[in-house]
C-alpha cells in the first residue's frame, strides 16, 4: 500500500465532559478516498475538523507526513495549506467576487502573482463550468455553484488532501449531483480525500474505504462492497437499514 499521508493515532476529543472522539485511530494513505459515515452527532465532522486543527484534541496525536498537527504551532499555516477543506455551508467570502475568493489565499499565503493565481483559478473554474461567474459575488450563485467554487478555492492551493464535510447536505437534490460529479472527477485523478457524507450511493461509488463511526469510535471499516453488502456489526446493519424502506403494506 502507498505511503501514509495522515496518521490519526488514538485521539481523544471532548467538549467539557462530553466525549466526542474516543481513542480513534485511522491511517489515510496517499491517493486514497476514505468516506466516513455514521449517525448524526457520532463525531465524523469533528474528526475532519481535528485533522486541520480547527478543533484542539485532548489526547493522542495526528500527524501529516510525520509532522505533528497542532493548532498552536508555528507550522500550522504551512500544514493547513496542504490540507484543503470544503464546508457544508460553502463559506465563500461574501464581500469578494468568485475570482477574488479563489485567488486570495494563493496570493496572500503562497505569495503567488495575481496573474499566475488568476490563470489557474480561471482554468479550474472552467473545468467545473463556472468560468462565466468569475466576476459575480457569492450571493448571486446557487448553492451548488457556490459549493463548486468552494472546491475550486481549496484546489487552487494545491493541497495534498481534501476534506469534505457534508458538502451536499445543504443543497437541493438537483444540485447535489453537480457537486458530487466534481468530487468523482477528483477521485479519478488520484486525489487523496476524506469525505463525510450522508449520500450512501455516492459513498459507495467514490470510496476506496468506508469508515463507520458511532459514539466517537470506529465501529466498522471496509471496502464499499464489504460495508454496504455485508456489514459485519449489528450497529452498521441497523444504520444501513435506515436508508432502505419497505413497500408500505396498507392495512386491510
Amino acid at each position, binding site marked *: 500500500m502507498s505511503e501514509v499521508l495522515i496518521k490519526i493515532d488514538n485521539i481523544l476529543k471532548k467538549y467539557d465532559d462530553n466525549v466526542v472522539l474516543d481513542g480513534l485511530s485511522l491511517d489515510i494513505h496517499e491517493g486514497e478516498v476514505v468516506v466516513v459515515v455514521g449517525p448524526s452527532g457520532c463525531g465524523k465532522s469533528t474528526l475532519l475538523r481535528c485533522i486541520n486543527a480547527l478543533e484542539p484534541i485532548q489526547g493522542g496525536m495526528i500527524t501529516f507526513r510525520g509532522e505533528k498537527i497542532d493548532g498552536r504551532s508555528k507550522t500550522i499555516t504551512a500544514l493547513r495549506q496542504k490540507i484543503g477543506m470544503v464546508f457544508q455551508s460553502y463559506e465563500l467570502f461574501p464581500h469578494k467576487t468568485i475570482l477574488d475568493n479563489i485567488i486570495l489565499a494563493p496570493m496572500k*499565503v503562497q505569495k503567488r502573482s495575481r496573474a499566475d493565481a488568476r490563470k489557474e483559478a480561471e482554468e479550474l473554474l472552467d473545468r467545473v463550468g463556472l468560468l462565466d461567474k468569475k466576476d459575480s459575488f457569492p*450571493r448571486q450563485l446557487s448553492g451548488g455553484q457556490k459549493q463548486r467554487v468552494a472546491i475550486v478555492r481549496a484546489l487552487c492551493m494545491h493541497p495534498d488532501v481534501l476534506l469534505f464535510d457534508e458538502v451536499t447536505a445543504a443543497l437541493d437534490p438537483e444540485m447535489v449531483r453537480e457537486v458530487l460529479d466534481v468530487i468523482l472527477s477528483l477521485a479519478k485523478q488520484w486525489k487523496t480525500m476524506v469525505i463525510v457524507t450522508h449520500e450512501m450511493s455516492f459513498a459507495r461509488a467514490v470510496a476506496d474505504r468506508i469508515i463507520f463511526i458511532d459514539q466517537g469510535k470506529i465501529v466498522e471499516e471496509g471496502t464499499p462492497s464489504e460495508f454496504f453488502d455485508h456489514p459485519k456489526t449489528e450497529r452498521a446493519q441497523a444504520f444501513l437499514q435506515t436508508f432502505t424502506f419497505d413497500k408500505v403494506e396498507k392495512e386491510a
Partner: protein
Amino acid sequence: MNWEVIQSYLPLYEKAALLTLKIGWLGIAFSIILGFVCAIIRHYKIPVLHRIVGIYIELFRNTPLLIQLFFLYFGLPKIGIAIDAEFCGVLGLALLGGAYMAESFRSGLESIEPIQTESALSLGMSRTQTIWHVILPQAISSSVPAFVANIVFLLKETSVFSAISLMDLMFTAKDLIGLYSKTIECLAMLVIFYLIILLPVSIVGSIVEKKLRFAGFGE
C-alpha cells in the same frame, strides 16, 4: 427676523462653525481609531487589556460628555497636567466616541459567523491575514449604519464644548444673545448652521451604507 443682524453675525458663526467642524472631525477621526482598537481587543478577548477596555467603555458610555470634559479641563490641571481647551475638546470627543464606536464595531465583528474564520484558516491564512482580509471588511460594512449614527451623535455633542469656553457655535450663539438679545436671529442661525454641518453627513452616510451593503456584496 432682522436680516441685517443676521448678516452682521454671519462671520462670527462661520468662524464658530469651522471650530466645531475642526474639533468634531478630529475627535471623530480619533474615536474611530480608538473604537477599532478597543473593539478588536474586546472581540478577541486579549488578556488583561480586554478588562481595561471594558471598564473604559462602560465608564464613558454611561457618563455625560459634559462631565467628562469637566474632568479633563478642570481636573487634569489639579494633578499637574494642563491642556488647552481645543485639545481637551478633541480628547473628550475621541474618548466618548471611542466607547460608542467600539461597541458598534464589536457588534459588526460579532455578526460574522466564526466559521468564516475557520474557512480562511483552513486555506492556510494566518490569524492576522484572516482578520485583515476576511473579517474586517465584512465587519466594517455591517457596522456602517451604526457608525453614521455615531458620527451624527458626536457632532451634535460638540454643542457642550461651550462649557469649557471653546468658541463653537453654541458658545457664539449664547454669547451674542447675552450681549445683544437678538434671540430669534441667533437661535435660527444656530439651527441652520448645525443643519448645514449635519445634513450632508446623514445624506452621504446613507449613500455609503447602500453602496457597501448591496453593490459591494453583489446585489
